[in-house]
């Protein structure tokens, strides 16, 4: 590797850190600059809706890499700085106040931001969101005591906040415009399971309604709903999805759709620019179409691909990762329930359930035609490695056999491996 080359990494989250560590492990010993708008070293975001809000005070988000990594591996840090422009032609990144960083390769890992909600009659600062550690610090003291908390959106972030807030003694209402929870990402069975769990714990739901306006009191806000009723809130948190921070890339002429379009190696339409994580739109082999996945696993995986590809491009090869692409993976923790989603559930045409007798634990397998394409695990994380292998092996046997609890998953995996080999 040559020492006279340089890579600039824009964004200081999970994907940025993992790409840097991947490049260093691959032997890249040129210069690296990490630019981030937040003043923190890259940290893990999954705890933001969990321990950061409901754990002990003084919570510190775990850093993706050891603090000493950046010094030990000569990574120049430009934290608390905003990228004004990217110039792929000149290999340059402009920060404010005239600072211009030139490099041979650029990774854009700027992530996503919360989609905002505007409600006539309600000041924007009354509608909170949760994307970073500062948001969590602001929210934590509010989710306490007798506050009435209204969550706009029954998605993962909203539901994790609901679970924590209700245990803190708050009155919690979730307003969801769609007829069921997390409609985009989980099956109706899991939606109902979660809804029942939350309702049993005292969370109130309003489905199929939207907020049309609000009336502000001194500290409380009355939210008028589309069905003519209203809800009063002391705290309002919107969790209605995220938007990719792809504007600097688009302004630089890099091809963007809903996010920055990248090829299988996470390279953008500019030959010297890569993108990974929440901001990247990539054809995922498990979906067979361009997807923008917002998950810990996707950020990790794409960052490794990008890191290897950038390092390879600098020594003149065009390496791809080589190993088989693992199924996408996502998890959520609510109360004592751990939900894990593997593969592709949104394209499901039929399902096979493999649940415990009381219905509290188990999994749901999803098929498209005869193909096993995904699985949802309800408090059954121990089986995740076997389910992942099943997804990778495929299931050539009758679908309903997966629901036979008389056979262990290990036995089912052996049966499928044998059938595939035959």
């Amino acid at each position: 590797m040559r020492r006279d080359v340089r890579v600039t990494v824009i964004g200081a989250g999970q994907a940025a850190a993992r790409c840097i560590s991947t490049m260093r492990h691959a032997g890249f010993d040129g210069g690296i600059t990490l630019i981030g708008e937040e003043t923190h070293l890259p940290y893990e975001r999954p705890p933001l809706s969990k321990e950061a809000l409901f754990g002990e005070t003084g919570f510190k988000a775990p850093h993706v890499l050891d603090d000493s990594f950046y010094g030990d591996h000569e990574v120049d840090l430009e934290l608390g700085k905003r990228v004004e422009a990217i110039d792929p032609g000149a290999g340059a990144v402009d920060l404010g106040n005239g600072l211009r960083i030139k490099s041979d390769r650029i990774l854009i890992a700027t992530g996503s931001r919360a989609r905002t909600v505007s409600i006539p009659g309600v000041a924007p600062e009354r509608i909170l969101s949760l994307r970073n550690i500062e948001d969590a610090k602001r929210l934590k003291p509010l989710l306490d005591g007798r506050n009435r908390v209204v969550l706009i959106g029954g998605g993962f972030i909203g539901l994790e906040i609901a679970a924590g807030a209700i245990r803190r003694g708050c009155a919690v209402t979730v307003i969801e415009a769609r007829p069921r929870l997390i409609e985009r990402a989980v099956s109706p069975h899991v939606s109902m399971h979660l809804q029942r769990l939350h309702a049993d714990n005292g969370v109130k739901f309003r489905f199929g309604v939207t907020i049309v306006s609000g009336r502000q009191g001194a500290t409380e806000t009355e939210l008028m709903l589309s069905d003519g009723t209203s809800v009063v809130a002391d705290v309002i948190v919107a969790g209605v999805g995220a938007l990719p921070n792809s504007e600097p890339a688009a302004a630089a002429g890099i091809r963007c759709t809903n996010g920055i379009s990248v090829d299988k190696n996470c390279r953008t339409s500019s030959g010297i620019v890569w993108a990974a994580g929440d901001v990247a739109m990539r054809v995922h082999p498990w979906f067979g179409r361009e997807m923008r996945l917002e998950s810990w696993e996707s950020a990790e995986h794409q960052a490794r691909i990008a890191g290897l590809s950038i390092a390879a491009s600098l020594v003149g090869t065009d390496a791809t990762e080589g190993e088989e692409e693992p199924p996408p993976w996502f998890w959520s923790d609510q109360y004592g329930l751990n939900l894990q989603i593997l593969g592709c559930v949104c394209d499901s045409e039929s399902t096979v359930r493999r649940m415990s007798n009381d219905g509290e634990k188990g999994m749901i397998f999803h098929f498209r035609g005869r193909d096993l394409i995904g699985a949802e695990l309800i408090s059954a994380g121990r089986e995740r490695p076997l389910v992942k292998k099943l997804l990778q092996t495929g299931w050539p046997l009758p679908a309903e056999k997966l629901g036979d609890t008389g056979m262990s998953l290990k036995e089912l995996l052996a049966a499928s491996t044998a059938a595939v080999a035959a």
Partner: protein
Amino acid sequence: MSWQEVAKKSDVEEGEALQVCVSGEPIAIYNVGGTLFATHDICTHAHAHLSDGYIEGDCVECPLHGGVFRISTGEAVSGPVQKPLRIFPIKVEGESILIDG
């Protein structure tokens, strides 16, 4: 620290793990190919029991978020884990498993 009997050899089958408690600390005992190892039972990433984890070779995968640890050394191998697991000296005397904890 002192050696304490925590289980019988027959309690942990090959490829399996067992939770025991020593001086108030939850500890996972693993049988890896006939050799016994002991680590702290709680994942260093979130509150999950590694004795409920998935064992493959000499690694255990946390059931909550997929963090993987090497059972023999406690080293964090992959997944969202950074901190290694504490490991405990373990030995077998006759049919008894003893841990120094």
